[in-house]
C-alpha cells in the first residue's frame, strides 16, 4: 500500500488552464498519474493536454469519476475551489497554491475535515507514490523514479526533492513522499502524515523534514517517546541559523514568542530517540543505520 492514494485514484486539476496548472497536469500525466480532467470556471468544453475541462467540480466528478483534486487556483480564489471540491464529494484535495490568507485556510480545512475530506497543503509540493507511479503535485518526476519502502514527510518543497534524491542515490527507494505545506495551518500536519505512514506495513522507515516555526516536531517527538510510533524515524530540521521573529520564506517558518526554533526541535527529536541529520546529505546513512537495528 501507499499512503492516501491507490491504483483507483483519479485526479482532476483545478485551475488547469493556468500556466502552472497546465504545465503540471502534463508532468503528472507523464509520471503515470491517472489525471482525468480539469476545472476552470468559464472554460468548460475545451481541452488541455488532451484532458476535458469542466466549469464545475461537480460536472467533472460526474463525467470522469474523479475522487481526488489538485488545486492550482490563485490565492484569492483558492478557498472557493476547496469548498467546491469538498461539496462535490472529492475525498483528497491537494492545495499547491501559496499565499492563501490564513483565516480562510483555517475555515476550509476545518470544513473539509468535518466532511471526511483529507486536505494536503496549502503551500505544498503535494504527494508522490513511486510504487504506483502516482503524483498529485509538482515534485520533479526525475527524482521519484525509485520505488521502495521509505516514507518521507516534509514541511518543505525543494528540500524534500534534495533529500529524496540523496535517498535514491543511496539505493533507498520511496513508498510515499508527502509535502505537508509551509503554512502555519495545513490540512494534514507533520504528525498526522507520519501517523498515516506509521500504520502502513509497506513502509519500513520514515524521514521527517521539519523546519523552524510551530510545534509539530515537538509533538511528534512526544508521541515517539511515548511509544505510539513503532517504526524508525530519521529527522532533519532546517533553519538552525534562522533569527527570531523573522519569517523565513514560508509563512509558517517563524520563531515566535520564544518557541519554534530549530535547535529545540532537534533537541526534542534526539531526546525522544529520533536520530537527526546535521546536513541533508547525512540522512541516508542515518536511515540505513536505523533500518539495521
Amino acid at each position, binding site marked *: 500500500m501507499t499512503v492516501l492514494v491507490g491504483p483507483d485514484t483519479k485526479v482532476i486539476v483545478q485551475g488547469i488552464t493556468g500556466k502552472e496548472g497546465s504545465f503540471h497536469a502534463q508532468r503528472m500525466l507523464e509520471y503515470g498519474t491517472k489525471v482525468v480532467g480539469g476545472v476552470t470556471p468559464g472554460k468548460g468544453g475545451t481541452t488541455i493536454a488532451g484532458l476535458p475541462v469542466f466549469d464545475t467540480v461537480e460536472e467533472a466528478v460526474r463525467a470522469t469519476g474523479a475522487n481526488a483534486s489538485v488545486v492550482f487556483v490563485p490565492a484569492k480564489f483558492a478557498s472557493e475551489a476547496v469548498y467546491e471540491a469538498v461539496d462535490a464529494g472529492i475525498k483528497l484535495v491537494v492545495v499547491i497554491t501559496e499565499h492563501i*490568507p490564513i*483565516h480562510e485556510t483555517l475555515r476550509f480545512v476545518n470544513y473539509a475535515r468535518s466532511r471526511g475530506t483529507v486536505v494536503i497543503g496549502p503551500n505544498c509540493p503535494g504527494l508522490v507514490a513511486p510504487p504506483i507511479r502516482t503524483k498529485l503535485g509538482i515534485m520533479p518526476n526525475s527524482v521519484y523514479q525509485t520505488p521502495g519502502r521509505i516514507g518521507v514527510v516534509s514541511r518543505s518543497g525543494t528540500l524534500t526533492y534534495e533529500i529524496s534524491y540523496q535517498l535514491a542515490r543511496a539505493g533507498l527507494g520511496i513508498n510515499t513522499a508527502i509535502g505537508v505545506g509551509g503554512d502555519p495551518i495545513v490540512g494534514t500536519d507533520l504528525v498526522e502524515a507520519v501517523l498515516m505512514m506509521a500504520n502502513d506495513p509497506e513502509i519500513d522507515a520514515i524521514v521527517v523534514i521539519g523546519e523552524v516555526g510551530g510545534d509539530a516536531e515537538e509533538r511528534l517527538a512526544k508521541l515517539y517517546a511515548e511509544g505510539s510510533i513503532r517504526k524508525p524515524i530519521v529527522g532533519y530540521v532546517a533553519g*538552525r541559523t*534562522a533569527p527570531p521573529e523573522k519569517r*523565513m520564506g514560508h509563512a509558517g517558518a517563524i520563531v515566535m514568542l520564544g518557541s519554534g526554533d530549530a535547535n529545540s526541535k532537534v533537541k526534542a527529536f534526539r531526546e525522544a530517540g529520533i536520530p537527526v541529520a546535521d546536513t541533508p546529505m547525512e540522512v541516508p546513512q542515518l536511515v540505513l543505520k536505523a533500518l539495521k537495528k
Partner: protein
Amino acid sequence: MKLYEYEAKEILAKYGVKIPFGKLAFTPQEARKIAEEIGKPVVLKAQVTVAGRGKAGGIKVAKTPEEAEALAKQMFGMTIKGLVVKKIYVTEYQEVEREMYLSLIIDRASRRYLFLASPVGGVDIEEIARKEPEKIKRVYVDPFEGLRDFHVRTIASWLGFKQGTPQWDQASSIVRAMYRAMTELEAELVESNPLAVTKSGEVVPLDARIIVDDNALFKHPDLEKAYEEDPRDVTEFERYAQKIGFNYVELDGDVGIIGNGAGLTMSTMDLVYHFGGRPANFLDIGGGASRDVVKEALKVLLKHPRVKVIFINIFGGITRADEVAAGIEAALAETGGTDKKIIVRMKGTNEELGRQMLAKLGIPLYENAEEAAQKAVELARP
C-alpha cells in the same frame, strides 16, 4: 505586517476598549508639547515593532515636559534590534497594581483560535511560560462558532476578576475587542503584555501588539497603504529584495546565500554555519529558476557590502543549469564584474552545458552541496 503599539491601541479603542490618553511625537519638541498637554508624568515609548524594547531602553518615564523632551532626544535615532526609532508614543503614566498577560493566536495543532491568559505577566512572560506553565490558561475558540460568553467569563475569571465588578466588565470588553481585531483584521497575533490593573483600579492594556496576515493585506487597503508608506520592520536591503519579489532576510555573516525554496535556502545557511562559516542572508528565489530571476537575485548580493562570497544552491529537477549560468553571466555583465567569489551548486538538466558556461566566467559548478559549502566557507576566511 506588524502594527505599531499606537496603531494596535487605536484599533482596540475603536472596538470599545478604554486606552490611556496618548499621542505620537516625531520630534523631542513634540514630545514636550504632548507632555504639557497631558499635564502629568508621561511614558515615552519608542515605536518599533519588535518585542523587548523596554529592556533595550525604549520605554522611559518623564516627570516633567522638560524631562520628556530630554529623554525623547536620546531616544530618537536609537537603534533597537536593528530598527531606528522614528516615532515615540507619549502617553499618560499609569501606576500599576499588577501585570497580566493576554494573547490570541491561531493554534496550529487544534486548528482553532487560542487565547493564552495569565494572571501574572510583563517582561518575564517567556520565563513564566517555561517555569510555571500552569499559570497560563488556554481557551480555544472554534472558528465557525466564534467567541461565546463562557469563553469570555473563563478568561476574566482566570485573570482574577469578580463577576459584577467594573473590572470584570473592562476585562471582558478587552477580550471581545481582541477577538474582533483578530477576525476582522485577519490577524495572526493580538497580544496585550502587560495587561494591567492600575492603582486607580482600571483594567488597561498597557501594551498592545497586532500582527496582520500579509497574505490578507489586499483585503484591508488602509493597512496596506500604511505598510507601503512605512514598511517598519524590514531593513532597507530586505525591502529592496522584497520589491523585486524575493523572500529575503538579513543575517550578520559574510557568505551570501541564494537558494530555491525556503527549506532548501535555510538548509544552505545551516550548511555554511555547520562548516564554520557565517551566512550573510537568506534569499529564496522561489520555485523554478529562470535566468532573469537568478540575475536579479545575484545583483542583490553583488551590491551587498558585507558579502565576500556568494553561494548559490539550486535544486531543480526541471531547472536548467544553462539557464542559471546565463543568469549569472548577465548579472556580472550588468554590474561590470565583481571581486566577490561565486560558488554554484546545482542539480538540474543540462548540467554539462551549464558547467562549460560557468567555467568561462571562472566559476566552478559543484554537484555536491557539502563540498560547495566547504569551499564557500574557505574562500570567506580572511
